[in-house]
């Protein structure tokens, strides 16, 4: 597994070295991260008030503590996240197939997938988002398998971090209950006690929600007094759903 992680990191670093320019939208992130370091929180998000803050914070922290340029800091965050995504996929596959070899194949495929390598080089939020969401799902799986509520805490933490990277991170809060309902239906004849099953599932989900809320609401409150207009639940989402349901027009 170490060799596969090394392969993943090599591809991603190689891509960073092969591409001397960044994406068009990366200028936005760089300017916000620079503004955060130079002027503080008050004006950092004025160029895009709705953007979730975690990636900007990560870039600024990486630059502050490593001394590299902001562009390099952005690439470091994406590359490290992209490499850890391979680890998350390995652990997920190990749970699914209960076979180390299958898990290694999954890790290898993730390490060498061209698109995952390309987004790991970009100064964009997607690599970090994919990594955090994958870990959130992974800890939810572990929490369910090992019946350990602390692991659900970790799942909530990563879900919060994913939502603070891209608003779509809240999808985990929908995926988990849907999956719990499917589990109930599939195992309806095998469950010895419905009450215990429902209690355990509900409590696990409550732990997830509680951690998510505890991690995100303070951040939203702190940012409310600044140029940021970020909300945990993106208000535009309802508009998109309505448009889609009314059969969107050009």
């Amino acid at each position: 597994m170490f060799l596969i992680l090394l392969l993943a990191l090599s591809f991603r670093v190689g891509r960073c070295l092969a591409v001397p320019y960044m994406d068009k939208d990366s200028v936005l992130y760089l300017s916000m991260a620079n503004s955060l370091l130079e002027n503080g929180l008050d004006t950092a998000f004025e160029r895009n008030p709705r953007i979730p803050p975690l990636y900007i914070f990560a870039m600024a922290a990486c630059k502050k503590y490593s001394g590299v340029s902001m562009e390099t800091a952005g690439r470091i965050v994406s590359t490290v996240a992209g490499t850890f995504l391979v680890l998350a996929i390995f652990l997920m596959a190990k749970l699914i197939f209960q076979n180390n070899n299958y898990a290694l194949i999954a890790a290898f495929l993730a390490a060498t997938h061209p698109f995952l390598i390309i987004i790991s080089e970009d100064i964009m939020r997607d690599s970090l988002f994919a990594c955090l969401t994958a870990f959130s799902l992974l800890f939810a799986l572990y929490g369910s398998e090992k019946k350990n509520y602390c692991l659900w805490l970790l799942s909530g933490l990563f879900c919060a971090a994913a939502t603070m990277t891209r608003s779509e991170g809240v999808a985990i809060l929908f995926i988990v209950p849907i999956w719990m309902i499917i589990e109930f239906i599939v195992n309806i004849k095998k469950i010895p006690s419905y009450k215990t099953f429902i209690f355990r599932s509900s409590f696990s989900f409550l732990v997830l929600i509680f951690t998510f809320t505890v991690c995100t609401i303070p951040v939203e409150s702190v940012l409310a007094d600044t140029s940021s207009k970020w909300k945990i639940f993106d208000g535009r989402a309802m508009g998109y759903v309505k448009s889609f349901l009314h059969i969107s027009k050009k």
Partner: protein
Amino acid sequence: MFRNFFILESWQKMSNIYTGAFFYTLLVLLVFAAINWRNFKNNSPTRMLLTAFSFTFLLQIVIYFCVRYERRYLAFAIAIAIPLAVPGFIKLAEVISKYLKFITVKKAFLILALTAVIISAFKTLNPENGKVWLHEVSNDIKLFCPPGKKPVVLTYSPDERLAYYAGATYIRFTSGELIKGEVESIRYKYSGDKIIEIPTVKEREQLGLFTYRGIDDYAGYFIALDIPQGLENFNSNVKRFGTDNVFIVVPKSDNDFKNTFIKAGIKDLAFTLIKEYVYKRSKTTVVYTLYKVNYDKNELKSQNDDNVTGKR
């Protein structure tokens, strides 16, 4: 921005995006995984993964029809599709070993792994678009800008990277052509202390409408400055943003750009050609032209004198 659900073209574009993002290797493996579905265990983690993949996939379809879509939104969907493709990898190795009898299953695994590495290396370490102009033009801007001064880049390209690499202030002016998104993004103008909406599309389409990037409630928009605008005021406007540190960059040839002024009867231009950059690519030719705005030497001298005496 909003695509029609019932138009075939929308679905064709979507399938192109998805195919490009998932990539052919993963799609082939997913097909073989579907054939080899018995390799999946009927367990809770598998059901969780399938739930997560289905939900994410459907969510992305909804998002595709509602916003400006980019394939990088599929990153998470691809990540959770990968474990689903593992049985496909094994099945493909078995098929190869079955039809090429001199290759054992182990060797087939190695061949597939090596193929994956070679394809990834070719695809990712050999970038398709060598946007060399981003660095060449910006390096020349830094070269021609007087030391100690921050350059100002005036351009109608919405791509801010050039100004970023030059360490320059980015100011956008309209091109007079219907560049995609330009009409939507230049909706407002400064009017004294206020910002008001530009009433007509015609006003937004004129060449030489100088704008600043909006912030806060106007983030994502470009706001036209409260100055006499348009082609007839272009020469005077370009001098407003500095002295010997102002540059114009256009994604057009020198002849084409200057012809716009000649056709309007403007012969004397307030800028001088520095260089034209021509890049031949496989299907297109990319042209950029860099100009330096002519400055009033008295204004510059006065600025320098004020700096010495500390008046500014």
